[in-house]
């Protein structure tokens, strides 16, 4: 109940700040681009668009929203209500996953892309957005200014996105399998490429483990710097 209330507010907050309009414009634009592309390029383009733009945005958006709430001392007043930190964080994350997943599915539908591996794909889109969002929150817990936050989170974002080099077959190393992004790139790519079941299962497991690690890290940082700042 408290979670739903917080999530509803976050969605309305994002709506009033124009995020849904921005995403609508982008979604339509990407659908047009995908429809104009030759068939062989549609699937890789879809993977790259979702990976780089739709999902990775969580980095920017959620983190910046938290920064703004901190700047206006809103977190202070939220945490003197029964709302728990866990619920606060989940509301932020779920509200953004809703937007990112909605946009990803609309792009897919609009570009008439589909396939039997859809479940894997959706899992990949959701978790891709999730992982980036968590990374963003880690930095948002302490950054003082939006620019400060951008620069630091962008640096970290580029770093964890390195497996994209393997995806475009420029450079590969087994080390990439440690990265959560290697897994999301596999799952986002299942519609156009055949992957072994083991590879898909590995990706899901990797993402779940990363979710647990990053999730508890975010919780601890928020508990220390936002919930009980001293």
């Amino acid at each position, binding site marked *: *109940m*408290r979670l739903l*209330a*917080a999530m509803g*507010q976050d969605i*309305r*907050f994002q709506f*009033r*700040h124009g995020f849904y309009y921005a995403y609508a414009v982008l979604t339509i634009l990407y659908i047009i681009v995908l429809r104009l592309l030759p068939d062989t390029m549609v699937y890789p383009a879809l993977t790259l668009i979702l990976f780089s733009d739709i999902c990775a945005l969580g980095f920017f958006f959620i983190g910046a929203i938290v920064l703004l709430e901190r700047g*206006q*001392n*809103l977190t*202070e*007043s939220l*945490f*003197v*209500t*029964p*709302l*728990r930190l866990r619920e606060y964080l989940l509301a932020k994350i779920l509200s953004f996953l809703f937007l990112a997943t909605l946009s990803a599915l609309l792009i897919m539908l609009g570009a008439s892309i589909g396939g039997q591996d859809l479940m894997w794909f959706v899992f990949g889109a959701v978790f891709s957005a999730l992982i980036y969002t968590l990374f963003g929150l880690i930095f948002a817990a302490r950054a003082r200014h939006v620019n400060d936050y951008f620069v630091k989170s962008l640096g970290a974002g580029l770093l964890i996105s390195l497996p994209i080099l393997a995806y475009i077959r420029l450079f590969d190393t087994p080390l990439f399998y440690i990265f959560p992004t290697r897994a999301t790139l596999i799952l986002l790519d299942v519609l156009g490429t055949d992957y072994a079941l083991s590879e898909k299962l590995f990706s899901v497991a990797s993402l779940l483990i990363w979710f647990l690690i990053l999730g508890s890290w975010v919780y601890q940082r928020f508990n220390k710097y936002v*919930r*009980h*700042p*001293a």
Partner: protein
Amino acid sequence: MIQVNDLHFAYGSNTQDTLRGLNFHINDGEIFGFLGPSGAGKSTTQKILIGILKNFRGSVSVNGLDLQKLNSEFYESIGVAFETPNLYTKFTALENLEFFAQFYTGMTRNPMELLAAVGLEEAARTRVSDYSKGMKVRLNFCRSLLNNPRLIFLDEPTAGLDPVNLRKMESLILEEKARGNTICITTHDMHVADTLCDRVAFIVDGEISLIDAPRKLKLQHGQRFLELEYRDGDKLETISIPMDNLGSNKTFQNILNNYFIETIHSREASLEDVFVKTTGRSLQ
């Protein structure tokens, strides 16, 4: 209601304590005021009492609950208005209150009635970004009352209010006391402390120098004299007369009977005088 023993607190890596051994208790149903200049440790104390600052030394119990072991249940029954009004600026006053009300499991008060009580009913559907400072302070106060709190913390509740709204705010705070609620106020405004608080604590440099009822303090530190201003022909005369055995004081009777009196005052100390006298500091 609140019992605090030997409370120490230091911020972050500061080696020096911001709070240096506070001892006080707040009774059920009273209005307790922390009075002191900015930076004295008032807000820090309040942040500890509401569970925001954790790593303190000493013992603090609120409602019989040890604050070191607090859970979110605690927040069902307290209300807090921070010094800086923190509200969603792109949302209306009503939307803000309705949003915060959803977090409580118990009965919440009707947001519209709360807004009406502080004179904001006309502006209920106005976005907070279009509010003036004083309007935000009033809305912030409404939010702290949403959940029918038994214990209310108000940080500088009258900052930025015009005289009319100041009066209104004071009577609302007294109304909460009449309901049997306990209220903890921090302020540097002597007038507020004087008219509202049952007891005040003077706090300077992280230490409490004195706790007592404002009236008692004023009498204790004042002089038992009456000060009269009266007209003698064209001249304005001032005279001080001891208050003891006033009825049989000849000078006093003479003036009462034969002169035109302009003012009469007793010379009890103002709360500000007491503060300066006991702490050696001014309130600014």
